[in-house]
Every structure is written in C-alpha cells, then in structure tokens.
C-alpha cells in the first residue's frame, strides 16, 4: 500500500481539519476576550477616578468644588477634562472657556437629560430595591479615551452628575497575553502525526481507531483551552494588581491634597472601585490589598460564558471529526462535484440572502434581548444582555391613560396606544380603499359607458407615482397657512384647520393621503374580476325577475369574493407597514400620537438611538404579522373551499 492511499484511509484529514477549526476558533475567542478584558479594566480605572473625585467634592461648596476639580486635573495628566452639572447649572468645569459656574446653554441640553436619566435610574433602583438600571454611563470616544458620568451628591442627596474625560490608553492595566502560537502549532503537528498513525477501518461502524481519534481530538482541544483559560486568569490577576497599585497611588495623592474621603483599612467596601450600578466590586480593599478568593470567584463567573462557548466549539470540532472519519464528508464532496453546476449557479444568491436577509433577521432578534444603544454598543455582547426586559417594558406597560381633574390624558408613547392607532389606521384605510375601488369598478364596468379607457388611465395615476412623492405633496396641500385644503375651507366661510396639531385631524391627513393612493389597486383588481363574470348570469337573473340589489347580492359579491379576499389580505399588510405616509405626511404629530408601529420603531432606533428597544419593538411587529399570516392562510383556504 503506498503512502497516499494510507493517508487517505487514516484519520489524518479528520483530525487535521477538526483540530484546525478548534484551534482557530479558540484563538479567536481568547483574543476577543482579551480585548474585552482590556476594555473592561480601562473602564474600571476611569470609573475609579470619577468616583474618587465625586466623593471628594460631595460635601463642599461651589467654590471649593471648582478648586478641587481643577487641582485634581492638574495632578493627573490622564484626566482630560471634568465637568459637574447640577440641575440647570454647570457647577464646575476644568475647561477654561466654560467659566463655571453658569447656566447650561441650549445646546448642552443633553447633559441635563443625562442627569435626569441617572437620577431616574437611582430612584428606580432604590424604589424597587433591586439593581436594575445603570447609574454610571460610559462612552468610548476614541481608542482608550472614555467619558464617564457618575452621580454627584451633596449631603447624601442626588445633586447632579460628574462627567470626566479620561485617557486610559497606553496605561499598563492589562498586559498582552503571551503568544500561544507555538503551543497551537505544536498541537496541530501532534494532531497530524497522530492522525496519520491511526488507520481507520472503512466498513466497521465502531472500531478502536475511531474511538482513539476522538480521544486524541478531545485531549488536544481541552489542553489548548485549559492553557488559554489559565493565561487569561493570570492576565486578569495581574490587571487587578495594577489597578490596586493605581488605587493606592491616587489615594495617597488625594491624602496629600487633603481630599480623601475613604478610610484605608481592610474593608472591601471600596466606593472608588465600583461596577456600573455603583456597587463596590470587592476586588481591591480600601488599603490596596487584594482578595484572591474574590478574584477567583469573579473570574469563574466571568469565564462561565467563555467555557460554554468553548464547549460548543469542542462539540462542533467533534462533529466535524466524526463527519469526516465516517466518510460523509467524502460523499458530500462527491455530491457537490456531481452537482457542481447547480451549486455554482445558486451559491451567489443564497450567500447574499444568508448574509443580508437571514443573518440580519437573526441578529435583530438577538439584539432585542440586549440593552444596546448608540452609547454602549462598543461593549461586548454578553455584557449587554438583559433578557426579556425590553419585551416586558413594551408589552407590560398598561399605562395607557391618566385620569386627571381636567379629564383623561392619553399616553401617546404607550405601545397599546400605538397599536390602537395602527389598527384604526389599517381598518379605515382598507375600508376606504375597498369601498371607493368597488364603486369605481362598478361604474367603469357599466355597459356602453364612453371614455372608459381615459377614466381608467387617469384613475390609475395615483398608483403610478412614487408614494413618497405623493406623501410630500399631500403634506404641502395640508399646509395650515397656505395649503390648498384650508383655502377650500375658507372659500366656504369655514375656519382654517391646523391639521397637524390635533390628534384626529392629523390622523385624517394620513387617511386621506393613503386613501388617495390605494384605491386604484382595489379598483383595478375588482374591475378585472367583474369583467370575468359572464353576462349570461345577469341576463338569467333578470329573466327570473331579480332586481339590481338582488343581482349585486347574489351574483356579483359571491363571485368577487375569491379575488377580493386575497386583495384585502394583501392590502392589510401593506397598510399596516405603510411607513412612508405616516412618516412623511404628519410625522406622527402631535407629540407622537399618530405614530403607527413601524414608524414608532424607526423613531426609537434612529431618533432615540435605542437600537435594542427598537429591535424588540420590531420583533413584536413581526409576531403580530406572523399571527395575522397564519390567520390569513386559514381564511384564504376557507374561501378556496368555497
């Protein structure tokens, strides 16, 4: 037997491919995790410095606060700027152009909003006695440059926020892990050697060699992963030591300046070193000592997720190994070679669909279980996971209206209000479309009517014009001051209507626009169906003495049903998802009262930048459409049997 034949029958291809996959995926995972940890530790450092300063200025007056803020920045070159905001006031700032204290400017409203958001988060956490909302905000501006916002207290009361720009880059908080390429290459060579020695029996289902190959694979994979986890843990404890050292140095500096608010003892309630909910991490004591036990517990909690992925990689590798050594891979290759033409023709389209349709769909659903916004999307995915919270917030909020002495105030931001509007929008539009379309079709179907073709072409025009143009045109015609529609009202002595200021009138603008552009479709469909009804049926009915109404009821309507129902089903989905009209005509005015679900989801994503919340919103829309789709197939089936 020659060597090539021998290698072909050995476990070499199987072990080679599966070990390679495991090593590459493992290396990639460790690398990503290393970056995560580095980011996390840089953030931890930035938060520590912000907390330290917030505590140092907690109980001083405005003048002293400004002095301390400037002093601290001068002593620490890594702090790029500091501002403190309290209410509408810019209390302190290290930027010379700010001239604090002063009132916030218009364009600084974002700071005021942020302050309110953090206050609300603190109140939620306190009220519910569970820690649910983050009270620390971190944003990464450039590589290693963070903007940290923490609450700013005076006399134990929330007084505003402290925002610090901190440069954590270039600082040795997390040294790079030693390269594991050597180990990986050695393990790969070992796999190749072992694989070439194991000669598989092609016919037998279970033989020792296959078992051995699996054993070799698992040994190599576990060895590599164990080694990687070990290195990560070491890097982490090293990072912890670096942060402890930084903590001590900073604490001494604060002491020298006379600002220190922490007593240095063995307590692990270190208020400087906290998580995003301002809970002490418990890794570094106030005297700078490190708890090995807490550190190990922290790492094992952190690496649990990692271990799960590594386990999945092992299973994938084992599956690939079995797939190859049992000869399925060879058979699949043969199949691809046999159908090579078909594969070549189909692959580009399938690939495009997978990447740009199916992956985004899955990713959108995954996103809806996180709290991703524009400001935290740089965080690793597992840190953003929040479970079902978004869905609970959307579907569990029944705060639709408030009862006040002046009457009921509707909460237009509520999901159920928007759902109600969407349903009303869909029903009224489809009703109008079908009614108008039906009447016009009946009229145009009149025998002997002249100029049918001209009417038909003109009436079909609204359908032909791009609907975003239609929407903008109607927006112009509803212009409260110069719009044509108000001119007509005034012509007959009526008062002009501020169309977009009232909930109902604003709703009407959308319905009018959509009605205008959707009747031609119904008209054309119904006209087509009417023309296919044989004339003899009407003649026979007339002979039997049926009047117009009876002919309509017993001949026209039943025969239209098979065409009409699918057309209605289709137009319900179109109207439900009619983004352009609402978005461009009224924009959901007033105050978001006329938003439909789909425009609401868009605004949440691209005006509030709450990507995850918008994804959850869209998932709910998808579920509604899915339920409707199932319902619809039932109806369509029912009409088919009719």
């Amino acid at each position, binding site marked *: 037997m020659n060597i090539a034949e021998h290698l072909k029958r050995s476990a070499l291809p199987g072990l080679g491919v599966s070990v390679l996959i495991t090593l590459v995926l493992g290396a990639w995972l460790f690398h990503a995790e290393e970056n995560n940890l580095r980011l996390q530790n840089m953030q931890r450092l930035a938060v520590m410095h912000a907390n330290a300063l917030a505590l140092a200025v907690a109980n001083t007056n405005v003048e002293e606060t400004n002095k301390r803020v400037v002093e601290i920045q001068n002593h620490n070159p890594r702090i790029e700027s500091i501002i403190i905001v309290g209410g509408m006031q810019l209390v302190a700032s290290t930027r010379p152009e700010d001239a604090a204290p002063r009132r916030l400017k218009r364009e600084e409203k974002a700071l005021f909003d942020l302050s309110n958001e953090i206050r609300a988060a603190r109140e939620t956490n306190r009220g519910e006695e569970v820690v649910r909302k983050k009270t620390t905000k971190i944003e990464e501006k450039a590589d290693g440059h963070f903007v940290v916002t923490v609450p700013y207290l005076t006399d134990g009361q929330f007084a505003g926020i402290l925002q610090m720009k901190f440069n954590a880059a270039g600082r040795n908080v997390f040294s790079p892990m030693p390269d594991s390429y050597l180990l990986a290459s050695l393990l790969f060579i070992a796999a190749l050697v072992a694989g070439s020695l194991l000669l598989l029996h092609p016919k037998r289902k279970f033989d020792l060699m296959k078992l051995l190959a699996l054993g070799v694979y698992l040994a190599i994979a576990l060895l590599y992963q164990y080694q990687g986890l070990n290195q990560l843990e070491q890097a982490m404890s090293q990072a912890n030591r670096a942060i402890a050292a930084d903590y001590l140095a900073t604490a001494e500096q604060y002491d020298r300046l006379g600002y220190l608010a922490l007593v240095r003892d063995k307590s692990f309630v270190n208020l400087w070193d906290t998580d995003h909910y301002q809970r002490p991490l418990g890794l570094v004591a106030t005297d700078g000592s490190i708890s090995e036990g807490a550190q190990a517990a922290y790492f094992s909690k952190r690496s649990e997720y990692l271990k799960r992925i590594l386990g999945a990689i092992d299973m994938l590798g084992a599956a690939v190994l079995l797939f190859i050594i049992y000869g399925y891979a060879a058979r699949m290759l043969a199949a691809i070679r046999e159908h090579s033409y078909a594969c070549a023709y189909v692959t580009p389209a399938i690939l495009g669909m997978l990447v740009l*349709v*199916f992956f985004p769909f899955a990713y959108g659903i995954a996103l809806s279980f996180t709290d991703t916004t524009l400001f935290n999307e740089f965080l690793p995915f597992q840190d953003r996971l929040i479970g079902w919270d978004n869905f609970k917030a959307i579907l569990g909020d029944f705060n639709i209206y408030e009862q006040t002495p002046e009457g009921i105030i509707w909460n237009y931001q509520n999901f159920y209000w928007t759902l109600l509007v969407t349903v009303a929008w869909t029903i009224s539009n489809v009703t109008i479309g079908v009614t108008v379309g039906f009447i*016009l079709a009946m009229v145009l179907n009149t025998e002997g*009517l002249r100029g049918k073709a001209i009417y038909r072409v003109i009436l079909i025009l609204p359908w*032909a014009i791009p609907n*975003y143009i239609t929407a903008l045109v109607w927006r112009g015609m509803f212009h409260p001051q110069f719009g044509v529609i108000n001119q007509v009202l005034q012509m007959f002595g009526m008062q002009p209507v501020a169309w977009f200021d009232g909930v109902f009138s604003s709703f009407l603008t959308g319905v009018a626009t959509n009605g205008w552009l959707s009747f031609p479709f119904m008209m054309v469909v119904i006209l087509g169906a009417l023309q296919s009804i044989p004339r003899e049926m009407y003649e026979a009915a007339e002979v039997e003495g049926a009047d117009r109404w009876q002919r309509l009821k017993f001949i026209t309507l039943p025969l239209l049903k098979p065409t009409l129902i*699918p057309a209605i089903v289709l137009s319900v989905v179109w109207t439900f998802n009619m983004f352009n009209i609402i978005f461009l005509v009224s924009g959901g005015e007033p105050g978001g009262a006329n938003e439909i679900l789909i425009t609401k989801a868009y605004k949440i994503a691209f005006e509030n930048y709450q990507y995850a919340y918008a*994804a959850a919103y*869209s998932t709910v829309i998808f579920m509604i459409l899915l339920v409707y789709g199932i319902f619809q197939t039932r109806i369509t089936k029912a009409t088919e049997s009719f």
Partner: protein
Amino acid sequence: MANDNSKNHVWLHLGLITFTVLAIYPVLWVLALSFSGQQNVGLIDLPKDPTFFERFRGIVPVPAHWSVQNFVGVWTEQDFGRWLWNSAVVSLMTTALGVFLACTAAYAFSRFRFPGRNTGMLMFLVSQMFPGTLTLIPLFIIIVKWLELGNTYIGLVIVYATTAIPFCVWMLKGYFDTIPYDIEESALIDGASRLTIFWRIILPLAKPAIAITALFSFMTAWNEFILASVFMESEANYTAPVGLRFFVGGFSSQWGYFAAGSVIVSLPVVALFLQLQKYLISGLTAGSVK
C-alpha cells in the same frame, strides 16, 4: 330603455368626472407648482382679505406666471443633479446585480435537481415575511458600522439587490420552466457546455421575463426611501428620494424645487408603470388568487 340608459350615464359621467378631477388634482398641483417659478406652497399670493373668487383662483392648479425657473434652479442652484445621478447609478447597479443573481439562481432551480433545492426555494419565500424595521437596524449595524459602507453606492446596491432577489427568482423560475428542455438537450448533444447554453440559448429566450425582472429591481431601488435615508448621511450622497424630502422636510420649504424634482423623478416611473401595468396586475392577482 335606451333613453333611460343614456340619462343614467350622464349622472355616471358627472360623478366620474368629479372624482377624476379630485384624483388628478394633486398631480396637477405639483405640475403647476413646478412651473410657477417660486418656492411658496401657495400657487398665488393672496391679498389681505381675499374674496371667494380670489381664493378660488388660488386653488386652480395654474401658476400665476409660467416659468421654468424651478427646473433650471434645481439643476444649477441645488445638488439635485448629483442626487439624480446617485439614484441612477444605484438603481442601474442594483438592476445589473439583481438580475444576474436572480437569473443564475432561477436557472438552477428550474433545471437542476440537487439536494437542498426545495429548502432553498422555501427560504426565499419565507424571507418575504420579515418586517423591514427588524432587519433595518441590523443592516444599519452591518453595513454602516461593521463594513463601513455607509455613504457608498455599494452598501445600498447589495442591500437592494438582495431584497429584490426572492421575487425575481420566483418570477424567472416560472418563466424558465416554460422553456422546453428539448432545446437544451439537443444543444448538449451538439457538444455545447452548460454555460454556453445558459448564455446563448436560455437568456435570449427569456428576454421578456428578464425585462420585467430588471424593471422591478430598478423601481425598487429608484423609489426606495427608508434605507437610503439611513445609509446616506452626507448630503453629497443623497439619492433623489432623500433629496426631495430634504427640500420640504423639517423646517425647509423649497416647494418649487420639490415640485420640479418630483416631476423629473416621476416621469420615467409613471411612463414605465402605465406601459407595464397589465403584467404587474396579472402577476399580483395570479399570485394572490392561487
């Protein structure tokens, strides 16, 4: 009886004419505005206390002074030419890519029996149910944040082309199925390769269906507004729909430019639509009635 009928028709005509005027009014309004040479949303300047007839004159869709100034201005003073060019490039590239991908895939689905064929067809059908906003955010993250293809033609083109694929594949496959297999068989016997058959025989035979598919892809890209407004942030990269909204959205109100731009953008689409409405309608109803 005949007398009775024609009397009825008078009323019908009256009703129809009224309705037709209502239906066509917005179109005439835009046309009048585009030729009015000014930027206001009103067609004429009304005096302080207008009478009934002055108001009536205000709503008649005829400009006070005829002028092509808006059409000139939209090209010279505004970036509209650039936006139109962007739209044209994106739409043509989408058409080319979409038709290429759809033709190859549809041919394979129509002619070859291979493992995974039914799954693939089903996959295309299912994808039509995904709501736009759910994929919009991930697409934004993938295209703009990861691939950094925001503000480029390619980002928009690949997304448009893939969204158009399922419809095009189903449509083309249906047409390919009607082309008799004998033609291919005899060509195979004559020694032609699969590629030659596809290029030289099948594609020329399927020209009508390919034309419809191409038009569908083109219109998808030409009329698309949401994705374009999300992907194209810088003004120089706007497509025509985003640009038209730029004229009158928010606080700007350049209605004259908007009207002129709308006429330019709509003309080709409306012409194509009126030409092809028969096919479109038969396709829609065939699909739904079944």
